[in-house]
């Protein structure tokens, strides 16, 4: 498929919510690190399924069930290609990236992390790649260690190299949902695996925004969420290297994940279905295919380029505005399209509330990364985060609305 040049206006026109009015204004949606808006191709796929071939998968031998099964598995193949995995056996559907990480903690972690082991994460982690390891380490009497960051918001690689030796697991995000920091996961995976350490990469903030190749990256596990990349909520992906997934016990138990069940024993289904117990989120998985196709038509390289351009413009405009503190790497090649900031005159909650009156949607608070905020001595931040449909005009609206914040709340 030949990639189309990214035409922001055209993308915007594909997303129905952008034609609605809020307080009489169109929506300047700058909370893409929380979730993305959906193009009509994805929304229509949901309606088409429920109206045209709603049925359960992997069971029925009638036409619509076979069609649903084919399309469900077609998404798996699309995900495989999208992240560069070798086989669809390595692609497991979950509810979200959080569940993908919990699956690893509760199955692989349960059988592989032992007393005295060290589990290595970074101070950048979202709670979803932190709490599962905290709880696992408490239960196993293992040690949870944090890789620090440097003053410019990038990961402290010297600290990592010191701690990597002998660690059982490295679980690290590829892009921070607060500072936007892009973490050099490929280099880290190379070092970690040389030390015999298993590597999990949280791709919730990277897979939607840049080209990902799990084979090239050299990780053992990779997690992502559909809803952050134009797809529906309720679908996540866990990529796992085949030999590791094969050795892992199942996660949830029940229908579809079994091969044979007798009154006193059961055997497990083949990969990847061993990890997909019960009726899956069929409709949303099928619709997720259309999100991946949409992104691939644009090409992830042009999505990334567009976001770098918007982020560059936004950083300049926010610096010009004055009185703001911007966090995260200044070097755009080390930064995703996320800008966390604070304002001297106003609390992040108040900023977001006043911006809302201007139909500018941003996030405020800890963004599920409280340890990171604590390490920076911040009581919360305001955060603008961009995607392929955002425009410079929306950045201008953000800056104008910040002027209103200062007008209303300035002391």
């Amino acid at each position: 498929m030949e990639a189309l040049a990214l035409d922001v206006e055209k993308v915007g026109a594909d997303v129905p919510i952008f034609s609605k009015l809020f307080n009489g204004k169109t929506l300047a949606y700058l909370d893409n690190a929380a979730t993305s808006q959906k193009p009509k191709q994805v929304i229509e796929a949901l309606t088409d399924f429920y109206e045209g071939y709603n049925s359960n998968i992997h069971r029925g031998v009638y036409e619509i069930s076979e069609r649903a099964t084919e399309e469900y598995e077609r998404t798996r193949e699309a995900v495989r290609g999208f992240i560069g995995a070798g086989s669809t056996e390595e692609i497991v559907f979950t509810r979200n990236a959080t569940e993908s990480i919990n699956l690893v903690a509760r199955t692989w972690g349960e059988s592989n992390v032992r007393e005295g082991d060290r589990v290595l994460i970074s101070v950048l982690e979202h709670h979803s790649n932190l709490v599962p390891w905290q709880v696992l380490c408490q239960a196993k009497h293992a040690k949870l260690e944090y890789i620090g960051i440097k003053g410019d918001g990038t990961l402290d690689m010297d600290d990592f190299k010191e701690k990597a030796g002998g660690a059982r697991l490295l679980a690290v995000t590829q892009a921070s949902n607060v500072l936007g920091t892009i973490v050099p996961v490929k280099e880290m995976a190379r070092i970690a695996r040389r030390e015999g350490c298993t590597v999990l990469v949280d791709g919730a903030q990277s897979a939607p925004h840049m080209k990902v190749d799990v084979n090239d990256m050299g990780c053992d596990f990779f997690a992502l969420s559909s809803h952050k990349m134009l797809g529906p909520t309720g679908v996540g992906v866990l990529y796992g290297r085949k030999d590791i997934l094969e050795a892992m016990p199942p996660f949830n138990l029940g229908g579809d994940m079994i091969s044979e069940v007798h009154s006193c024993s059961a055997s497990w289904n083949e990969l990847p279905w061993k990890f997909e117990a019960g009726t899956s989120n069929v409709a949303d998985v099928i619709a997720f295919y259309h999100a991946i196709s949409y992104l691939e038509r644009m090409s992830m390289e042009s999505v990334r380029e567009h976001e770098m351009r918007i982020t560059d413009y936004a950083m300049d405009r926010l610096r010009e505005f004055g009185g703001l503190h911007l966090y995260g790497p200044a070097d755009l090649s080390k930064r995703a399209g996320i800008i966390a900031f604070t304002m001297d005159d106003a609390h992040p909650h108040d900023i977001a509330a006043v911006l809302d009156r201007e139909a500018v949607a941003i996030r405020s608070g800890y963004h599920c990364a409280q340890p990171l905020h604590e390490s920076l001595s911040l009581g919360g931040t305001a955060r603008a985060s961009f995607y392929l449909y955002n425009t410079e005009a929306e950045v201008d609206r953000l800056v104008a609305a910040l002027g209103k914040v200062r007008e209303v709340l300035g002391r």
Partner: protein
Amino acid sequence: MSDEVYKEIILDHYKNPHNFRQLAEPSFKADDSNPLCGDHIELSVKVADGRVSEVGFIGKGCAISQAAASILTDLIQGKTLDELKGMEKEQLLEAMGNPDLGPVRIKCALLSLKTLKLGLYPYMSARGPTP
């Protein structure tokens, strides 16, 4: 959220909070925070002859949480302990001009009242029933 949130009364109290101090010898004090957004309030109350004689608060956080705390300190002056105990959230919201708060920010508004009760209950039970 409508324009009705940042009412004059809220902005006035936010910009110039009343009773913004910690009492030296309070009868009771308490502090609490809203973990989701980091709002924090410390409230200290002095009781004389069964009534609130002096109130102070310090804190940091959003305009709603800080203004609500300031308004609460005015509201409870001179009240009896039973009146404090029976105080409902509607009384505080009314004193704030009934801003149109959503489900998230109502917690910011009610943090100070929650903090008051947190300090009040142990103080009342230690004191025993009112004569």
